[in-house]
């Protein structure tokens, strides 16, 4: 035969090898990975021995060593010598965990090993989840209080002890041992003749085991071609009679008894099952050199877990493959479902952890004692649903198809399994490993053994009852559906199991655990429903496995055929060679996630806002909402009355003033009062200003009050001009000041002859330039205001004879400021006042500015102040009534004042009354 190239490392291996001799990976047929729908190739278990992880091998060795120290009792988990935890020996970690009773075991592991509760171990022979003792059938059963994994402990302990143990929480060691049945296969050695001599557990298999053809066939095929591990070889010695009180691997014992004469049938077991249980495969090869269970337990050079060792010790109390062909109806026994008969579904009760009855393990077929107690329980069913079982385990969950083992069966079985004869014709029901369905108690019609290590077909494997621990690995798939990794593998992995797996780098052998499935398991999973096996009537819905429900991690570990998937091949992605993703391409590098052990921090999606922010947000929302709703304008009541009142006032005022102006009446006398400030201004003009003196007259008012200002300033200027004939310089800080000045001298003062004045023009900068003019007037204003395109270079204004002798501000004899605003008057007083020297400062202001300019007069900053038409009237009285503007306006002014007075008084009283009326009304209204 052509050499088989390993798909992992690429090394060529002999054709008859199932496990790569270099990396330990499973060598599938033609080096191809399993494709969906493809039936797995049967492998020899012994060939897969090398695929066992190191820790599993170590564990088995230790178990063998410790089993020497145990005679009657199942080996203690603590009896495991400290195994040298090699790289990928998964079971090696069992030692460290075996002493810890408080460690948790995953559900899927518990399902593998059977329920830790009392459900499994309640009654002898009850079909409940039993722990499979992969050790020799001669291995003594373990004590309940052993710190073995429960599933291992249950295999070796008595039924009562198994009950107690089952009630206990499964120890992590149990979990450890149960987590990776693959690990158990890593160290499986080809069965030897010694094994074939008949380990007790194998002997029990022969008599009691009811192995489903499907489940076992493939596995048996695998096991047939795989040498048994040493510990299994040691167990192949004749086992003692089965002890109902001992949880031993009766199914193994029975197998041993059945398979013993069929040592050479190992090749027959090499059905196309890729991931056959290596350990089971190796069992076949190790049948020859198999040693009795106690002897196997005493063997120190095997990495054998306690449960395996106990299987070797169990024969002390459990039937050996040779001596106890009947499968004891020991409820403590773990029996793979595929090893069970048709009563597996009825034996497993997922909804009732205590449902599985040991008797169900031996109902319609000679179920080994250890298989009888194996029933999927509710817990296991639940746990089975939680984890993903590998294909090879799920295959075992398929309904066991009761089938009479064929003659070929005996041919392909290893010797130790061949000795486990099927004594009953009742077909053994193959129960998938992941089956959560309760298996009905097997009919006590005798042990029905369907050897798992023969060259089973899928149909044959279906009759094999799968042990509970296998049945609880996952959901019960439909017979027509292949189990999927997602549903067949347990998802929850306890921490201790994690430590088991992460504490040591996994050797390449471990890859085989996840990539290879024992043949007997594959055969179980691949068994079509056409085998004719009918599920037990007692099988509940919960026990049914969903078709193609492989756990996700099993699916992920399923090798991808690059040839069939050109995309992956074309991507040129690297293939993972290590770790659980071995054989897969395109996976994320595991190194990236190393150390990423922290759970991602959960972030609150709710906006974190305090009360104030929420209130503000609410306010903003209200504002925005209000923007969308136009509010009707509330027109205040009385809008027409307001306009009517205004019009009435205007009309009255217009009538009065127009009548007085147009009629030219002079009814009202001029005021008799002589305000002091007004008279002071008049006196300055009259007596203080010398004749022909330069006088600065500042026209700093707006056209709005030109009438009032002209009325007030005209008498004073008229008196000044008439009395003193001054040389006046006209100045303005307003652009329209020059026009106002011209208006003044062309209007009220138009009748005066030859007034000497010069217009200095517009002082730019507003009031800020007053200081500059006061500081240096000759350089502040140079050109006259009549410059134009026709007169671009007029002479300097200061060269005019009118301003002769005027070089500074203080040269003026008087400064007459005519202004209508307080600011202008204040600015001139503040800026120019300190620089006027001896010049008289007279301010002629409007009535609106007079009260605020009064303090300046009181402080002496100005020498005279005349404001308003009242003072204009006073000035005109002192100027012989000239020019008469005030007189002309006085009657209208007086009538207007009277009207204002009456309107103001009457209106105020009316408003006051209305207000009080509203207040009273509002108070009465409450």
């Amino acid at each position: 035969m052509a050499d088989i190239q390993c798909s992992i490392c690429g090394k060529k291996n002999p054709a008859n090898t199932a496990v790569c001799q270099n990396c330990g990976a499973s060598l599938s047929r033609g080096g191809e990975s399993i494709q969906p729908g493809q039936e797995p190739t049967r492998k020899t278990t012994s060939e897969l021995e090398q695929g066992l992880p190191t820790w599993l091998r170590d564990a088995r060795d230790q178990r063998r060593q410790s089993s020497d120290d145990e005679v009657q009792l199942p080996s203690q988990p603590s009896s495991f010598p400290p195994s040298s935890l090699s790289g990928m020996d998964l079971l090696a970690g069992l030692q460290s965990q075996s002493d810890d009773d408080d460690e948790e075991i995953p559900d899927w592991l518990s399902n593998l090993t059977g329920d830790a509760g009392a459900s499994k171990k309640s009654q002898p022979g009850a079909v409940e989840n039993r722990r499979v003792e992969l050790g020799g059938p001669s291995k003594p059963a373990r004590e309940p209080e052993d710190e073995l994994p429960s599933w291992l402990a249950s295999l070796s302990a008595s039924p009562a002890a198994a009950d107690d143990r089952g009630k206990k929480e499964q120890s992590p060691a149990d979990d450890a041992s149960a987590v990776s049945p693959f690990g158990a296969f890593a160290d499986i050695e080809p069965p030897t003749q010694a094994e074939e001599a008949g380990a007790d557990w194998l002997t029990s298999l022969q008599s009691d085991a009811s192995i489903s053809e499907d489940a076992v066939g493939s596995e048996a095929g695998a096991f047939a071609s795989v040498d048994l591990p040493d510990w299994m070889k040691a167990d192949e010695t004749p086992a003692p009679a089965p002890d109902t009180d001992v949880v031993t691997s009766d199914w193994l014992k029975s197998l041993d008894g059945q398979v013993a004469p069929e040592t050479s049938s190992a090749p027959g077991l090499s059905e196309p099952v890729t991931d056959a249980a290596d350990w089971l495969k190796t069992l076949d090869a190790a049948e020859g050199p198999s040693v009795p269970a106690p002897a196997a337990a005493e063997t120190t050079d095997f990495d054998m877990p306690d449960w395996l060792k106990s299987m070797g010790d169990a024969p002390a109390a459990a039937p050996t493959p040779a001596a106890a062909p009947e499968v004891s109806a020991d409820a403590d026994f773990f029996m793979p479902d595929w090893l069970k008969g048709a009563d597996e579904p009825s034996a497993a009760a997922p909804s009732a952890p205590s449902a599985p009855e040991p008797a169900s393990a031996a109902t319609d077929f000679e179920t080994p004692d250890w298989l009888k107690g194996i029933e999927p329980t509710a817990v296991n069913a639940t746990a089975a649903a939680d984890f993903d079982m590998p294909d090879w385990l799920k295959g075992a969950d398929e309904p066991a198809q009761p089938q009479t083992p064929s003659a070929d069966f005996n041919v392909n079985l290893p010797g130790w399994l061949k000795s486990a004869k099927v004594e009953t014709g009742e077909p053994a029901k193959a129960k998938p490993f992941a089956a959560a369905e309760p298996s009905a108690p097997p009919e006590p019609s005798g042990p029905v053994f369907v050897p798992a290590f023969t060259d089973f077909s899928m149909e044959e494997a279906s009759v094999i009852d799968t042990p509970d621990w296998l049945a609880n690995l996952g959901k019960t798939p439909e017979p027509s559906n292949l189990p999927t990794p997602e549903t067949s593998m347990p998802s929850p992995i306890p921490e201790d199991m994690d430590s088991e797996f992460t504490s040591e780098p996994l050797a390449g052998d471990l890859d085989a655990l996840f990539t290879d499935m024992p043949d007997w398991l594959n055969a179980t999973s691949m068994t079509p429903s056409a085998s004719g096996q009918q599920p037990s009537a007692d099988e509940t819905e919960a026990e049914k496995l969903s078709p193609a429900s492989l756990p996700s991690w099993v699916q992920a570990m399923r090798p991808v055929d690059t040839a069939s998937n050109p995309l992956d091949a074309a991507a040129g992605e690297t293939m993972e060679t290590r770790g659980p993703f071995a054989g897969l391409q395109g996976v994320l590098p595991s190194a990236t996630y190393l150390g990423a052990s922290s759970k991602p921090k959960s972030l609150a999606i709710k906006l974190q806002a305090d009360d104030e922010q929420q209130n503000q947000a609410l306010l903003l929302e209200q504002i925005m909402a209000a923007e969308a709703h136009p509010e009707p304008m509330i027109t205040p009541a009385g809008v027409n009355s307001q306009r009517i009142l205004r019009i009435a006032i205007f009309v009255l005022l217009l009538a009065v003033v127009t009548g007085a102006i147009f009629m030219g009446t002079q009814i009202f006398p001029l005021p008799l009062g002589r305000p002091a400030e007004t008279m002071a201004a008049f006196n300055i003009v009259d007596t203080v200003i010398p004749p022909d003196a330069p006088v600065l007259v500042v026209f700093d008012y707006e056209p709005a009050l030109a009438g009032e200002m002209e009325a007030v300033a005209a008498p004073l200027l008229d008196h000044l001009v008439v009395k003193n004939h001054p040389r006046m310089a006209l100045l303005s800080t307003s652009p329209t000041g020059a026009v106002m000045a011209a208006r003044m001298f062309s209007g009220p003062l138009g009748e005066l002859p030859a007034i000497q004045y010069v217009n200095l023009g517009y002082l730019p900068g507003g009031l800020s330039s007053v200081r500059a003019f006061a500081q240096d007037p000759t350089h502040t204003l140079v050109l006259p205001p009549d410059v134009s395109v026709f007169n671009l270079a007029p002479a300097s204004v200061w060269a005019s004879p009118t301003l002769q002798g005027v070089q500074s501000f203080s040269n003026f004899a008087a400064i007459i400021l005519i202004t209508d605003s307080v600011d202008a008057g204040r600015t001139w007083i503040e800026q120019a006042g300190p620089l006027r020297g001896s010049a008289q400062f007279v301010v002629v202001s409007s009535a609106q500015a007079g009260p605020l300019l009064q303090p300046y007069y009181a402080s002496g900053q100005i020498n005279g102040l005349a404001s308003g038409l009242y003072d204009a009237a006073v000035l005109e009285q002192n100027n012989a009534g000239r020019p008469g503007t005030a007189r002309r306006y006085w009657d209208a002014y007086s009538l207007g004042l009277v009207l204002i007075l009456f309107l103001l008084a009457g209106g105020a009283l009316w408003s006051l009354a209305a207000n009080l009326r509203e207040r009273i009304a509002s108070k009465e209204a409450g």
Partner: protein
Amino acid sequence: MLISVDLITGALSFLFTVLIFSYLLGDNPLFRIGSYIFVGVTAGYVAAVAMWQVVYPQLLYPLVYGSMVDRILVFFPLLLTGFLFMKISPRTSYLGTPAMAYVAGISAAVTVGGAVLGTIFPQTLATIDIFDLARANSPFASLVSGVIILVSLVGTLAYFHFGARVTSDGTLRRFVVIELLSWVGRISIAITLGVLFAGVLLASLTAFIERIASWSIFFSSF
């Protein structure tokens, strides 16, 4: 027939007076026409005045007809004027900031100097001098007047003092003396504002009378 300027001016005056008086009836197109024309004429006149009485005599005339010293002195304001024209465009507006800063600084200084030397000191001294009874014509009247003026003055200043402290019940209250003076100042301010209001009212009445009188002159010219 020559139309005198005065006739045109009178007509325009009457027209615009009516246009503005129409505002008493509410906002209407006549009022808007009169106000928009007023703004345009005022802006044009101010621009013309600024050109002929500031820009040309202060900036251009020295460059053309001035001496070298005048030309040197006019360089800086000419430069600042150029920067100030950058304010027209938003993109170059930042270049006019120094010119505006110069004007702001000058104005602030003038204001500070005038306020201190022209108002605060003289008015304070004047308030003090009221109590110089030796120079008063009527000491008693002067004294009474002085007291009234002083109390009114202090009360007015206290009214605009907003420094307060938190009492035990959490409310803000000013000092008791300040509160009392503030109350007195409130009365004084009311009287002062009443006087000012009356003055404005009288001034506006005078303006009203002047307008009517201009109508009279206009109509009498026909």
